[in-house]
């Protein structure tokens, strides 16, 4: 993608310009927001095509809300992160359950070294994604921002509009919920803890 054509203007300003009919602002927002949203969707879904569909859907919602956007109430990037997260969650919840145990995975007839490990890895990722999708929204956002976006607790607090202590609590509860959801399957998924 080309470089950001309007680096001096923040997202809200560009969105306001788009709402006034500035097509160049739409291009600048696309260049700025789509790669990050796509990376987020890919980590949550593990599928390139699905991630692209989610990003297109999320950006479409942004274009639609542009005329009613209230500058100062929320950051555009945070709003988009939340929309992408919710769209990914919807898709994960509609997916058929993977049955994460390796017992459900057929053994290859002539196992090639690494194949079993690769299958185990895929099963592990699928199980973790399903468990993340089942988290309450704020726990899910705090957890993914912390681990996938490399955001610090103060940054997460700022983006979610909560205190740093609340962020620590949200991530801790999220991890406990994941551990509970994956209980008994961690060893099968390749972790001994």
């Amino acid at each position, binding site marked *: 993608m080309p470089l950001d054509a309007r680096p001096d203007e923040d997202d809200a300003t560009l969105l306001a310009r788009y709402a006034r009919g500035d097509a160049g602002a739409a291009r600048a927002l696309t260049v700025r927001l789509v790669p990050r949203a796509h990376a987020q969707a890919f980590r949550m879904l593990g599928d390139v095509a699905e991630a*692209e569909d989610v*990003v297109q859907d999320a950006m479409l919602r942004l274009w639609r809300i542009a005329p009613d956007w209230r500058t100062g109430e929320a950051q555009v990037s945070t709003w988009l992160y939340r929309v992408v997260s919710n769209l990914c969650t919807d898709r994960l919840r509609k997916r058929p359950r993977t049955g994460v145990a390796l017992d459900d995975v057929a053994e290859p007839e002539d196992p090639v070294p690494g194949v079993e490990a690769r299958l185990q890895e895929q099963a592990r990722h699928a199980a973790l994604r399903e468990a993340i999708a089942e988290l309450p929204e704020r726990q899910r956002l705090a957890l993914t921002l912390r681990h*996938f976006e490399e955001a610090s607790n103060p940054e997460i607090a700022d983006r979610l509009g909560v205190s740093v202590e609340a962020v620590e609590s949200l991530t801790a509860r999220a991890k406990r919920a994941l551990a509970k959801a994956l*209980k008994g399957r961690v060893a099968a998924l390749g*972790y*001994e803890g």
Partner: protein
Amino acid sequence: MKVAPEQSDPDGIDQMLDELAALPAPDPSGDLAARVLADAEMHMPAPDPSGDLAARVLADAEMHMPAPGGRPANIPWWQQIVRGIGGWGAVSGLVAATATGFVIGLGAVGETGVDTLWTLGYDTYYDTDVGLDAFGWAFEEG
């Protein structure tokens, strides 16, 4: 990303999350950007009206703006007619001209009426009072 464990990780959750976060995320395809921009174009509100239009509207507003302390906005319909004609002076002139025309018109009709009456009277007198008829003429002439 390796998040520094704030506590022990007996369930391996941090390790799993780190592994998932380390997955290389591919760059979005150019097709995605094209789709997003097409959506943006489709849903883009109409552009702001040009400055020229705004200037013309303001000029119209200024032209039709009442003078400070001018007449109130609600003017009775008959006052609007009087003002439209040109004021009370114009109304007076119009009334005078109308009256004059009416009088002249009456005179012309009166004159025509007198002639008509006179002609009719003459004919009647001639026929009835003199009493001449075809038989009389024939008697006198023998």
